[in-house]
């Protein structure tokens, strides 16, 4: 069953843009032309991508195209290779074979599972880390302050990270990832450690900023509901391959508990759990 799904996917991936159109219904993306801050996202193309650790293939021949500005969620069981895929796309790992082509302007940024804030730097300075080199001091302060305000933490600029709650720390990490106006934002299970309500707030915040700024978003998660709530498109990874590639044809803003989302979530879970699909 997986094999046929894969073959079907391979055909689609190799087909010209008609195939892509097929999977992505022509619905208007709720992405307002961002005033001032907006950067066009990066597009990503993977061709025959493979990576092995200690002789065991973790990524096993992935062909994939991600359009600029698309919100893609990558789901799968633990150890299926989804985090490695993210690291390959970000250039944190070198591919074993095949290639990763990233096209467009803007830096690539990542939000980790842990906030990874510098405990000895103020919240503002932590956000400024995301600006990289070659930015004047005044501009650093100004831009970092604006990014902090965007995640609703302007009043915490001078605080130490140790004094923040888990959700606030992850918001600072989000501000740090977005302060440079990235073309691609990779999210490596960034909300896994948060409580349910904080997680939903964070999801809304990420979605809102994505709509506003127009970066390409790549979310790795094992929370299928989260993937369905946020993404335009969901990739299910199994044994280092793309086993399912599904569009999420539900308009934004999405309401949690929407019947269309629930049906999709059920279908993906059935697949992951190896149950026969009702769809």
């Amino acid at each position, binding site marked *: 069953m997986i094999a046929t799904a894969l073959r079907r996917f391979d055909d689609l991936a190799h087909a010209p843009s008609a195939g892509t159109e097929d999977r992505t219904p022509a619905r208007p993306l709720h992405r307002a032309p961002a005033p001032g801050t907006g950067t066009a996202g990066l597009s990503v193309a993977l061709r025959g991508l493979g990576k092995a650790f200690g002789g065991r293939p973790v990524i096993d021949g992935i062909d994939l195209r991600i359009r600029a500005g698309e919100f893609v969620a990558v789901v799968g069981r633990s150890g299926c290779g989804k985090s490695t895929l993210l690291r390959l796309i970000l250039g*944190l790992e070198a591919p074993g074979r095949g290639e990763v082509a990233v096209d467009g302007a803007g*830096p690539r940024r*990542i939000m*980790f599972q842990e906030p*990874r804030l510098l405990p*000895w*730097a103020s919240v503002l300075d932590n956000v400024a880390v*995301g600006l990289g*080199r070659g930015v004047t001091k005044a501009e650093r302060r100004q831009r970092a302050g604006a990014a902090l305000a965007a995640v609703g933490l302007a009043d915490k600029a001078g605080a*130490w990270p140790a004094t923040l709650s888990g959700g606030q720390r992850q918001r600072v990490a989000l501000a740090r990832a977005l302060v440079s106006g990235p073309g691609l934002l990779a999210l490596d299970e960034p909300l896994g450690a948060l409580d349910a309500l904080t997680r939903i707030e964070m999801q809304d915040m990420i979605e809102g900023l994505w709509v506003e700024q127009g970066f390409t978003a790549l979310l790795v998660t094992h929370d299928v509901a989260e993937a369905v709530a946020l993404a335009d498109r969901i990739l299910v990874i199994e044994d280092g391959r793309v086993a399912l590639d599904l569009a999420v044809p539900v308009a934004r803003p999405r309401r949690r508990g929407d019947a269309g989302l629930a049906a999709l979530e059920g279908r993906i879970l059935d697949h992951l759990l190896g149950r026969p699909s009702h769809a």
Partner: protein
Amino acid sequence: MSQPLSGAGARLTPWLLPLAVVALWQVAGSAGLIPGTVMPTPAEVAEAGWRLGRTGELWTNLGVSFLRALGGLLVGGGIGFALGLANGLSRTSDVLTNTTVQMIRNVPHLSLIPLVILWFGIGEEAKLFLVALGVFFPIYANTHHGIRSVDPHLVEMGSVYGMSRTTLFLRVVLPGALPAIFVGLRYALGIMWLTLIVAETISASSGLGYMAMQAREFMLVDVVVLAIAIYALLGKVADALTRGLERRCLAWNPAYAG
């Protein structure tokens, strides 16, 4: 559990016990419970301090000891810090030198005194060498450990966010290692005084230890006790300075705040 004292109360409380001991000592001495040849009273010790202070002898010796301590700390601590950094950051450097350092570490540095006297006589080099050797190890070991135990997640974050090697070191690695380096500094300060006192007692012609030894020759118990009391005060001053530095440099760490 109990309410912490506030303001002046909190600052004075730690001194209650030492003051009580001194008071008790004074009373016992005045009442004749302790013979003056065994232990002079605090008043007599203070008077000895006043006497030696007026002649300038006390200040000269104190200054000499202080400079020796500081010199040894800077030389030994500087080398220990540099080698600790090198071995914490570079595998090659670690493999080359760490085994040797650990072997030397297991030799009690005070056992080198006879050799040091043969090499340097009783000049300043002997004291500098011994103090430097003594403070080297705690600073080396803790710097090394501090660098090694920096959270690799933070280092990865730094490099992903495009930090140069220098920035990564200054903004991530060094601040991460700082708490451990301070632990090393505190140990080093203790060893610094210990080494200096022993070295000055055995082979010197000036300094606090020498002053105490000279006083023993002339049965001046009050001066001997004075020297010991000064050591206690100097230790307290060094500790307070380190604490102040920690509070400034590690303000981000809830364990050191306040």
